[in-house]
């Protein structure tokens, strides 16, 4: 027999026998379970599904990247980057996407200089021309990739001129000892970069830049 707890008086209008302290937990546990499955279930189910085979992406003999499952190359073309002093440098561009987010790759053979200079060039020459209301983070982070190469990383927010959609991105720049440069620009609609940031970091970490 379930007896009411002494510290919780039974309501005067409660139906006889309706008091079930132990049952307070069961619905709450069920609600938690439903929420967990709804929020996280997709990621768990996705892990059990076969991922499409993805070929490595090699650009301009500078970088070689293995896309994670779900990412695919949607654009690939020659690219030119204007220099502030005049002239251009040429390289190869590719864009990988996974639904809501994208990773832009730019390989620049023989660009020279260091990663910080290339990062500055990318922000002023590329991002400025592609986005409106661009705001680049003042803090440029120096990092060492698992391959041992030094890199710099910065963030930005801006909006696409055609649609007005707000974007946020994270740019990682590497210049190899050979002088070849590589730019990794991971971006997504505002608020959604966080959802793909781990995958971006993982793909960049295992990229070979020569």
């Amino acid at each position, binding site marked *: 027999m379930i007896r009411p707890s002494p510290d*919780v008086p039974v*309501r*005067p*209008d*409660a*139906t*006889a026998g309706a008091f079930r302290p132990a049952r*307070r*937990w069961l*619905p*709450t546990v069920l*609600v*938690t379970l*439903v*929420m967990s499955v*709804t*929020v*996280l*279930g*997709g*990621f*768990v*189910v*996705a892990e059990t*599904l*076969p*991922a*499409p085979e993805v070929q490595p992406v090699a650009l301009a003999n500078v970088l070689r990247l293995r896309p994670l499952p*779900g990412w*695919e190359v949607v654009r690939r073309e020659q690219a030119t980057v204007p220099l502030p002093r005049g002239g251009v440098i040429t390289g190869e561009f590719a864009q990988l996407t*996974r*639904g*809501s987010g994208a990773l832009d790759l730019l390989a620049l053979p023989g660009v020279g200089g260091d990663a910080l200079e290339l990062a500055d060039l990318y922000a002023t020459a590329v991002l400025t021309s592609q986005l409106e*209301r661009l*705001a680049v983070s003042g803090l440029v982070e120096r990092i060492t990739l698992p391959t041992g190469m030094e890199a710099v990383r910065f963030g930005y*927010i801006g*909006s696409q001129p055609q*649609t*007005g*959609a*707000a974007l*946020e991105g994270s740019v990682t720049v590497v210049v190899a000892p050979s002088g070849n440069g590589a730019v990794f620009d991971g971006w997504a*609609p*505002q*608020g*959604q970069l966080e*959802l793909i940031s781990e995958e971006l970091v993982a793909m960049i970490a295992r990229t070979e830049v020569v």
Partner: protein
Amino acid sequence: MARLLSLSRSPLHHARFLQPRLPAFWLYTLVVTLTGVVAIGEQNLFREMSPSGWALSWGLVLLYAAPVAVLISLLDLYEREPIPLLAAAFVWGAVAATTLSAIGNAGWGIVIARLGGPEFATRWTAALTAPFVEEILKGVGVVLIVLIARDEVDDVMDGFVYGALCGLGFMIVENVFYFIAVFGGDVEGVLQGFFVRVIASGLYSHVLYTGLVGMAIGIVTTRRDDRPLRDRVRSAGLLAGAAVLGHFLWNSPILEFFPPHPWEGGEWFLIPVATAVKGLPLLLFVVLLVRLAHERERRWLHESLVSEIDEGSVTPQELAILERPRRRFQARRELRRRAGDRAANLLKRLQREQVNLAMVRSRVASEDDPALIRQRAVCRSIRDALEAIPGGASAVESGRPGADGPLG
């Protein structure tokens, strides 16, 4: 002057939101707190990106949301819900459901992409994920309200009110996201977004979906329906299914007449037409359901109180007025004119306690239950107090059995 019998509170409406003894309260608090950190971070980003656009976005959505919130709460004709609980439903929709939905939609979006491929996913992910993920997560908010304050959600209309407010909270935050992140966040973009998402589409979205989900929850938890639980669960499933179907249709490429962006000239007029094609059928369906729910509440009130006439707790005339909210208001206005504010306030209290009497009746097992006897006494006591007011007596007399006309 007659003395009022213990009118401090009726045995009903004790439900508070702050109930630390209930695990559901802590689950609600924990989830809203954690997701609130994420939601505040996102709003900060928007504010940094476009301070004026962000402020304008919130100004516009609140301008729209305030009257809608009042309208939703007024739809519950016979019993006003406690404001803290209404606020809790709204906050869940605005903070918890939006944040959790973003994660859930992303996860199930990957599943769609892996099963259907990128091209299929581009067209169908929004339709195949959001209706399920978002309706479940908003519905969870209503379920938590039920678990926190079981007595307050005791019929279909209560469920509708809590569900619709939860949907309104969700819609507001989602709209601010769209104004800044999709429409550009500058003044022109925000106004464009307001036109598309509020003026052209505002009647059709989350308020309706979650209102339906709330009705479904109300059907399951109601104390006023004698049908077996299995039958009520089946009805609830149909209502929740209608909400998901409406949301699916809205997000899907089916019946898509929306002109491509950027819009020029007559294309602006096409936008409300395009949204009406997808949204109007569901709106009409919900209006019909609300009318049916009102009629069902009216019948319930009549059946609950008609046997109270012999007890003197309510008169036939009072019951006739009580069943029609507009006549209740007219009766109070007439009494205020004739006998002053105090009499009108007492009549309002009498009407409220008579509705409470119907609720007590539906919750007790016997005619001599102490709560029922007490509530009858409360009603009679208020009427006695009303009779003691000059001008109020004539009103009460006209409402007694055998008098000529109805009260007011």
